[in-house]
């Protein structure tokens, strides 16, 4: 919390520099078939109130029964966050009134959460890494959904989401800039997706953040914080922090004080505003839910789940660096999504890891981004890309032709090896043919030939001409060797 202040991260105020301090509560929807305490489906997009059991609608006399898979998912997530798993945890009632909360309370965990302290290693765009402390993770119910735009004087309530399991992941106030906050959420999302415990779909609201922001002069104690509720995209998280930090700085520099409150970020207006209605609701009167006994399991259960965890992004990244000789940056790009990492590994298997990484990152990802496609929608399979790389390695095609080949396979598909055969894209290694082309160029450009003896860098021009004359199919090494000999360049 009192790590050395990085001057680059400070925000310039009118009077002096300010440090922004950020902590986050991430609500991540647990991936499960049924809800936390009922047998209703969690599927997205059902008809209104179709995925609702009598428990979710809080009908009198209904009792919650916990879903074992949701418990397992919370434990897996805790393990992925290198956190302490609590073998005994307690469910409490958090009391408040809202139309989409039929029970009048949310079943949550207060004093005794299922997961305790952990940490997340976050890589920043400039190559620096920070460790963000996790304070806790607890299980709780989601609320229903209210639609406010259907009628002028009424809200429409759909309880399909009511009772779906959420993991609330609370970070320590370890973040010092909007960049760090965005990188943290990105990394957390990656970990959750690797674990398969939350799909991280922010558009559907399956991952959303409450962001606590305060500012202080570097070295001072923490300032008063404001909580920005329910920010639902990584870009908006960054914008909300910038906006809120500047609002607070302006108030303090004008001699005012910050009042602790809940605020809402309005991306359209680019401002945060107070949610006054939330203020008095803060008296949640937590107490242990008498309908639920403490949640208990043994260490063997935790160990079993730990044994079934997939390789996580940090470990995968380290392995890519060690085994394939990749730079930390490239490895980081490849492991950001499990599907990308799997694709890369399929391409790299039995091939040069660095060459494979270049092709996957620069050609494939570049092209996918341009078309707005995900790796799972790639028109070029790992096998096809692997074949292209093999063809270069064997000297069958040049690197330049390989890019054309990639384009053909992307748009038309097919076996790259067959495409090269059919279209005559093979590199010309036959020295005779290359020699003919070289001789022709030399004959046409006597002035340049004379210059080349003085200025050997002109060789590049000759190579270019030869490649052009041969439709890019000449073997560059052979062209170089021939030209050097004929021009008398060492």
């Amino acid at each position, binding site marked *: 919390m009192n790590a050395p202040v990085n001057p680059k991260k400070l925000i310039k105020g009118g009077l002096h520099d300010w440090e922004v301090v950020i902590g986050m509560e991430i609500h991540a929807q647990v991936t499960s*078939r049924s809800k936390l305490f009922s*047998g209703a*489906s969690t599927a997205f997009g059902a008809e209104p109130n179709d995925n609702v059991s*009598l428990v979710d609608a809080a009908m009198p006399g209904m009792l919650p029964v916990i879903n074992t898979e949701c418990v397992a998912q919370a434990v897996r997530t805790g393990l992925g966050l290198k956190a302490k798993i609590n073998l005994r945890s307690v469910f409490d009632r958090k009391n408040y009134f809202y139309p989409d909360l039929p029970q009048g309370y949310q079943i949550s965990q207060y004093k005794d959460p299922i997961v305790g302290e952990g940490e997340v290693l976050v890589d920043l765009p400039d190559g620096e890494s920070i460790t963000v402390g996790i304070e806790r993770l607890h299980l709780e119910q989601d609320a229903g959904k209210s639609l*406010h735009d259907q009628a002028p004087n009424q809200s429409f309530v759909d309880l399909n989401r009511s009772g779906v399991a959420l993991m609330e992941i609370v970070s320590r106030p370890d973040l010092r800039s909007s960049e760090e906050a965005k990188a943290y959420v990105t990394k957390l999302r990656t970990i959750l997706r690797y674990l398969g415990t939350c799909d991280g779909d922010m558009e559907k609201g399956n991952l959303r953040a409450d962001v606590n922001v305060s500012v202080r002069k570097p070295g001072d104690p923490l300032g008063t914080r404001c909580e920005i509720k329910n920010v639902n995209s990584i870009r908006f998280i960054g914008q909300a922090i910038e906006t809120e930090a500047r609002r607070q700085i302006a108030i303090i520099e004008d001699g005012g004080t910050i009042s602790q409150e809940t605020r809402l970020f309005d991306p359209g207006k680019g401002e945060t505003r107070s949610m006054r209605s939330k203020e008095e609701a803060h008296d949640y009167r937590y107490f242990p839910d008498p309908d639920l006994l403490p949640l208990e399991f043994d260490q063997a259960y935790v160990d079993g789940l730990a044994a079934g965890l997939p390789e996580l992004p940090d470990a995968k990244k380290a392995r890519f660096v060690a085994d394939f000789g990749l730079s930390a940056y490239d490895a980081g790009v490849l492991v950001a999504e499990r599907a990308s990492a799997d694709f890369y590994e399929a391409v790299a298997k039995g091939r040069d890891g660095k060459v494979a990484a270049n092709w996957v990152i620069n050609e494939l990802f570049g092209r996918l981004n341009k078309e707005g496609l995900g790796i799972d929608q790639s028109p070029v399979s790992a096998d096809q890309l692997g074949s292209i790389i093999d063809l270069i390695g064997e000297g069958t095609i040049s690197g330049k032709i390989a890019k054309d080949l990639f384009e053909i396979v992307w748009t038309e598909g097919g076996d790259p090896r067959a495409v090269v055969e059919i279209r005559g894209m093979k590199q010309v290694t036959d020295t005779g043919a290359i020699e003919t082309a070289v001789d022709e160029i030399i004959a046409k450009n006597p002035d340049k030939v004379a210059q080349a003896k003085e200025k050997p860098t002109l060789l590049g021009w000759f190579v270019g001409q030869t490649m052009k004359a041969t439709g890019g199919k000449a073997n560059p090494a052979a062209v170089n060797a021939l030209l050097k000999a004929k021009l008398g360049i060492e």
Partner: protein
Amino acid sequence: MSVDAQTVRRIAHLARIAVSEEDVAPLQGELNAILAFVEQLGAVDVSGVEPMTSVTPMRMKKREDVVTEGGRATDIVANAPETEDHYFLVPKVVE
């Protein structure tokens, strides 16, 4: 521990119970009587005693992750004063 008149009003509001001004004083008396009664429990020495969560040595009941319910929206909204297309309709609540 005792509650004042303001706390009585606040508790009533949080519980969404309408309490008229003349009922506040009597309620305050009743609540304080209950609190005084409960406070007698403080006399018992419970140091070293595990908090009891159940009178029988029961473990928490659990269920498998299977969809067993749903598809009864008509029943779910049956008691609602107002509905439309299986939505509950409530007075407008908007931030």
